[in-house]
């Protein structure tokens, strides 16, 4: 067993490397991913080792990155696109929504689109405008796309390989503020399936759902709650489309209470869908409505105000209290 302590950034780098070794058709594309290794260095060293044909420094054009990835996929390649920051995915939105997402259906399965779109997402790093967005709901509302949000180095390492191997387009969301967090990664383990959620902490009083950057926050909240004798079950959703709610439903049937946490604006965020589905599935078990903790319904604020915008431990606990008191 070869286990290494890796940051999420390094885990992604190794995962990409392994995927490129495993399959010569894997091509990385993005702005500044080659010589520079990407602004977060996730692709560091890959162009040096795999060459410019497989790690492509692209022109500055996101529609171009995704649009040409479609053509490369048609030709049998497996493009892995990097969007430099979450806020810059929108120039590519047309290609993603009208082309990538629909290609398999419109060709009645004749073409598949094994395209991965890596997006560093979310806030908390004190960045300027458009560098802290959480656009997952736009994608999860779009049939034909799959959406994954990893929360830790182990899932990052395996998830990126699984996403690349998957035959469908995957929006692969990387919580940029967790890039530097470390974990032990067993590089030879058998990974968990990509498209499944997972209970990451057992508890009895309230089920707390999170994904990406908020998993850590939820776990911290559970820790704090435990000190006050309150027992939170935390589920890492891991995949946002398809949503794997079976473990969630089982949990909520037991706890009777559910809180969903995400950074994205709360209105029509993932929490809305989860609340609707969990309520339908657990109607008779619920002691309180599913409560949502999310970004406020305002544009992401300037960096020095982001702490007041982002859900944190206290806001999660506040929702837990409200759920308990309902």
């Amino acid at each position: 067993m070869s286990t290494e302590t890796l940051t999420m950034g390094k885990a992604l780098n190794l995962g990409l490397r392994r995927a490129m070794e495993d399959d010569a058709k894997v091509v990385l594309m993005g702005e500044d991913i080659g010589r520079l290794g990407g602004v977060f260095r996730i692709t560091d060293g890959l162009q040096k080792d795999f060459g410019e044909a497989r790690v492509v420094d692209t022109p500055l054009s996101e529609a171009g990155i995704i649009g040409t990835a479609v053509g490369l996929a048609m030709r049998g390649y497996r493009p892995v696109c990097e969007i430099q920051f979450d806020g810059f995915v929108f120039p590519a939105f047309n290609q993603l929504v009208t082309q990538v997402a629909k290609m398999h259906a419109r060709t009645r399965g004749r073409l598949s689109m094994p395209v991965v779109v890596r997006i560093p997402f979310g806030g908390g790093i004190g960045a300027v405008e458009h560098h802290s967005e959480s656009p997952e709901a736009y994608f999860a509302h779009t049939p034909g796309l799959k959406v994954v949000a990893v929360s830790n180095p182990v899932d990052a390492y395996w998830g990126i390989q699984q996403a690349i191997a998957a035959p469908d387009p995957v929006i692969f969301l990387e919580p940029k503020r967790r890039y530097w967090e470390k974990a032990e990664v067993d590089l030879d383990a058998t990974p968990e399936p990509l498209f499944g959620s997972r209970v990451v902490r057992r508890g009895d009083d309230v089920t707390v759902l999170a994904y990406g950057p908020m998993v850590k926050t939820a776990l911290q909240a559970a820790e704090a709650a435990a000190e006050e004798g309150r027992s939170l079950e935390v589920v890492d959703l891991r995949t946002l489309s398809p949503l794997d709610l079976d473990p969630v439903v089982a949990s909520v049937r037991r706890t009777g209470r559910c809180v969903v946490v995400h950074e994205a604006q709360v209105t029509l965020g993932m929490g809305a869908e989860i609340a609707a589905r969990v309520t339908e599935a657990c109607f008779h078990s619920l002691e309180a409505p599913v409560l949502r903790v999310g970004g406020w319904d305002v544009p992401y604020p300037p960096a020095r105000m982001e702490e007041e915008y982002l859900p944190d431990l206290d806001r999660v606990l506040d929702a837990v209290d409200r759920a308990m008191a309902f």
Partner: protein
Amino acid sequence: MPTLPREVAGPVPGAGAPHPPRQPDLVQLLTPEGRRVEHPGYAIDVSPDELRGLYRDLVLVRRWDTEATALQRQGELGLWASLLGQEAAQVGAGHALAAGDMAFPTYREHGVAWVRGVDPLHVMSLFRGVDNGGWDPVATGFHLYTIVIPAQTLHATGYAMGVQRDGAESAVLAFFGDGASSQGEVNEAMIWAASFAAPVVFFCQNNQYAISAPTERQSRVPLYQRAAGFGFPGVRVDGNDVLAVLAVTRAALAAAREGQGPTLVEAFTYRMGAHTTSDDPTRYRLADELEEWALRDPIVRLRLHLAEEGLADEAFLAGVDAEADDLAARIRSGTISMEPPPAVSMFDAVYAEQTAPLAAQRAEFEAYRSTFEGAGQE
């Protein structure tokens, strides 16, 4: 083969009219009167068989088009986008492609589809609302129609980048319209193709209109000049001259295959019909213009040329017409009997790997549908 008397070609509307002014920058190999002219940059050597083959294709695709328009009027299609007037641009471009090449059409390239061997019924099914195009893009080397303008030009560029990585000797042909030239994506496609010297040829059918908008709304200079700004050659070809289109596109594809990067071909033509069957062009264009362009008809000019050169006799022409009627009949009967697949199939090709929630929704759908079947049997 006997030389034919001139009359065989049939009455040519306006054949005696003055030659439309030659544009200095327009590549032409066949005048509207059917006379072969030379162009310093583009020689072409076509055998009589090839010439007759081109003529046959032009006539057949026009007949298909006419039949489709009729079928739409009769309620058998939801919509039809006519290629009337653009047959030469499409048949010429289609014939320039080699077997391993790939073409990315818009929604009007029925003539290219035909040349690529796509069954017309697989195009009709789209306009009937049965599917989004029934042909296999890989097997035919002809992608499905793309309706979001001009998303396919980036796909073509990416595909060409794949060809490059494969070290294959193929090229890619990306179709788009004069209106499409204003979209960011086609400009990005050209920028990428130039940057990577990708083996892709951009083929713009400038049919003078984007629905109601004349080309001047999109560009104040001839569109082929756009390419120079991106650092690659652009050429304007008479889009109603099948020989010139063939020669120019073939040369551009050859250059692409040889690693010389992209070319922009502007096929200067005219949309003789409405934008689609939903459109009413009398609201925005004058009959004069139509009459003027009727004099440059792509089929007439090739027929005149064949006649002049004694390459087609009455039997041949009649044979092509008969073939066209057969094709039309086949298209008609095939279209009318075309039914959509079972509704539940809409759940099946969303993903290559089905998801649990969608499988559940599919089951829900079937259960719900079955309550009606029960009701129907009562």
